[in-house]
């Protein structure tokens, strides 16, 4: 069992006195289009090398995902940068 700290539930926000004109898209963030037969675990293994990091992807896509076991082909997922 890894002793690695889990930062998947870190919440962040940005506010400014300046005008924020767009989302810079977190450095290193990637996107992935779900294919038939994909699972979040498989995608996590592909991007992070560990299937158990599926929650990182799930949390980053809560706006389009309600259940980590239910992803649909064609959905475009945000893949946060790996550490």
């Amino acid at each position, binding site marked *: 069992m890894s002793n690695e700290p889990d930062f998947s539930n*870190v919440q962040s926000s*940005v*506010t400014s*006195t300046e*005008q924020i004109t767009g989302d*810079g898209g977190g450095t*290193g963030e990637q996107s992935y289009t779900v294919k038939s037969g994909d699972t979040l675990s498989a995608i996590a293994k592909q991007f992070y090398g560990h299937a158990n990091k599926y929650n990182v992807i799930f949390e980053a896509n809560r706006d389009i995902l309600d259940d980590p076991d239910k992803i649909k082909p064609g959905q475009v997922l945000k893949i946060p940068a790996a550490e």
Partner: protein
Amino acid sequence: MKQNRLPLILTSALIASVAIVGCKKKEETPPAPAATSTPAPAPAPAAATASVASVDLGSAVGADFKVSAPATTFKPKDSIYAAVSTTTSDPAATVPGKLSAKWTYDHNGTPMTVNEEAKEVSFTSTGVTDFKISKPDGFPTGKYKVEVSLDGAVVQTKEFEVK
């Protein structure tokens, strides 16, 4: 016959004088002014630039977006703010730029990404942009670092600790 030649002579003289006058006139035509000198283009003003003046860490910010009390040590359940003060070289200019913050945790000497956030910002004169992170179940204790980048280049780095 001799009388008939007079008008011819007069006509010739008239044509000659007209020709002379015509030529003279041409000579008097003032020289065409030198091609209108196109006004020298005003030197292009140096493009205004934005820069990061300072980065302060704290657990709360005020109405002015600046941290209430700068700190480098936090409790696990604190919200952590990085207040990035920016300025533009021309106070009247609006300078677009990408401001980002990358938070990392020192995991046995290996940096682990805690969070990365980037925003496109229109910088005008002076301003403050706050990057905030929090973790409902608390940050692991240890050493952390936040790198603030402007347009992809790291411009400030701050280290802090969670105890």
